C-alpha cells in the first residue's frame, strides 16, 4: 500500500490522489522522501497543496527543534495567571504559523475556547495548562482533515488538548497527545443500541481507524 502511494506522489498525474492519501503517510520516512522527490522533480502539484505541505512540515520541525512550553518547574517568579497566559500565548503563536490555512472563524473560536479552559479564577493548581506538543498534534491533524464543524475544546489534567463533537446522542472525543499520538473514543447508537469504541493511534492513522464509524457525520457543518 505504502509503495503504491509513494508512486502516486512521484507521478504528477496522480498528485491529486496523493493529496487525498496524505494523512496515512504523514510523518513517515516514506512521506518525507516522497515530498522531497516531488520538489526535486519539480512535479506539478497545486500551489496551495505545496504551501500546506511546507507549513505542516515546518510545524513539526519547529516544535521538534525547540519548545515554547513554559518551564513549569520554574514557578518562583511567576503567578498562576502568568503561567496560564504564557501557555495560551504559546499555542496562539504556534497557530499563527499556519493561520493562512485556517478558517478565521475557526481560529477565533479556538482561541476563545483555549482562553476559557485556562480561566485563572477557576484554575486547579494541580493541573497542567495546555501542552504545546499536544496542541501541535491537534493542529497537524486539523490541517490534514479540515472538518467543517469545529470541536468543543477541553483539557486533560496533564494538559493534553481534548477535542469533542456530539451529534444527537453520538459523541466523538479525541485526546491529542504529544508527538502526533491520539487517544480516541466514539459512542454511536445503531437501532437505539449503543456501540462504543476506543483506542490509541497516530494522527496519520486516525481517519482510517475511525472510518468504520462514519465519523463524517460529526465533521459536517451543523445547519
Amino acid at each position, binding site marked *: 500500500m505504502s509503495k503504491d502511494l509513494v508512486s502516486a506522489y512521484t507521478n504528477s498525474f496522480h498528485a491529486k490522489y496523493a493529496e487525498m492519501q496524505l494523512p496515512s503517510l504523514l510523518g513517515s520516512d516514506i512521506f518525507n522522501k516522497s515530498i522531497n522527490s516531488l520538489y526535486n522533480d519539480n512535479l506539478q502539484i497545486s500551489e496551495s497543496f505545496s504551501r500546506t505541505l511546507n507549513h505542516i512540515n515546518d510545524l513539526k520541525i519547529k516544535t521538534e527543534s525547540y519548545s515554547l512550553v513554559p518551564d513549569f518547574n520554574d514557578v518562583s517568579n511567576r503567578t498562576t495567571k502568568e503561567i496560564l497566559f504564557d501557555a495560551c500565548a504559546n499555542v496562539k503563536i504556534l497557530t499563527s504559523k499556519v493561520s493562512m490555512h485556517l478558517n478565521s472563524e475557526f481560529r477565533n*473560536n479556538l482561541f*476563545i*475556547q483555549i482562553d*476559557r*479552559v485556562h*480561566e485563572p*479564577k*477557576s*484554575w*486547579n*493548581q*494541580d*493541573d497542567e495548562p495546555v501542552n504545546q506538543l499536544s496542541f501541535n498534534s491537534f493542529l497537524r491533524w486539523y490541517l490534514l482533515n479540515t472538518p467543517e*464543524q*469545529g*470541536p*468543543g*475544546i*477541553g*483539557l*486533560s*489534567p496533564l494538559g493534553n488538548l*481534548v477535542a*469533542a*463533537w*456530539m451529534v444527537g446522542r453520538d*459523541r466523538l*472525543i479525541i*485526546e491529542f497527545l504529544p508527538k502526533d499520538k491520539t*487517544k480516541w*473514543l466514539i*459512542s454511536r447508537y445503531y437501532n437505539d443500541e449503543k456501540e*462504543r469504541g*476506543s483506542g490509541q493511534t497516530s494522527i496519520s492513522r486516525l481517519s482510517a481507524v475511525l472510518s468504520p464509524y462514519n465519523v463524517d457525520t460529526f465533521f459536517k457543518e451543523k445547519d
Partner: protein
Amino acid sequence: MDIPEDDNVIRYIEYKFLLRDDKGVTLGLLPQAFELRDIDNGKLSISWLEYCNEVTHQKNIDSSVKTFRKVINNHSNNCGYGIGKVKTIKEVGSLFGTGKINIVHSPSKKNKAHSSIIRIPNNDWDFMAALAEDAFLELILDSNIP
C-alpha cells in the same frame, strides 16, 4: 461506611472537563472528568447527596452545591456537577473487572458528606467514558443553582 445503593452521589466537574460544542454549549461530561491525579490516591472524590437530608432531590443538590462552593479552591460558576446513582455506578464498574469498586462515606473537615469511589481501574479510558456516559447521568451547571 458503604453508601446505600439507591442513594446518589455528586461530583464537581471543572469547566475544562465539560463536553461542549464549539459555541460553548454544555452537552455532557468528558471522560477526563474522572481521570485520577497523583493527589487523588486512587480514589475519586464525590459527595453523598442524601447526606444533606433535605426534603427533595433538588434541595439536596442545592445544598451540596453550596458546600462545594465553600470548600473548593478557585471555585467558579462556569463549572458543573455530575450526579449518579450508587447502584448504577457499581454496575458500570463491574464491567471493568479489576476488582469490585465501592462507594464509601469518607467525611472531611470541610464537607461532612464527602465520599469516595474506591478500587477503581487506574485511568482506564473505557471506564472513565462509561462513568461519563452511563453512570453520572444527571448534569447540573453551577450557574443554574441559586
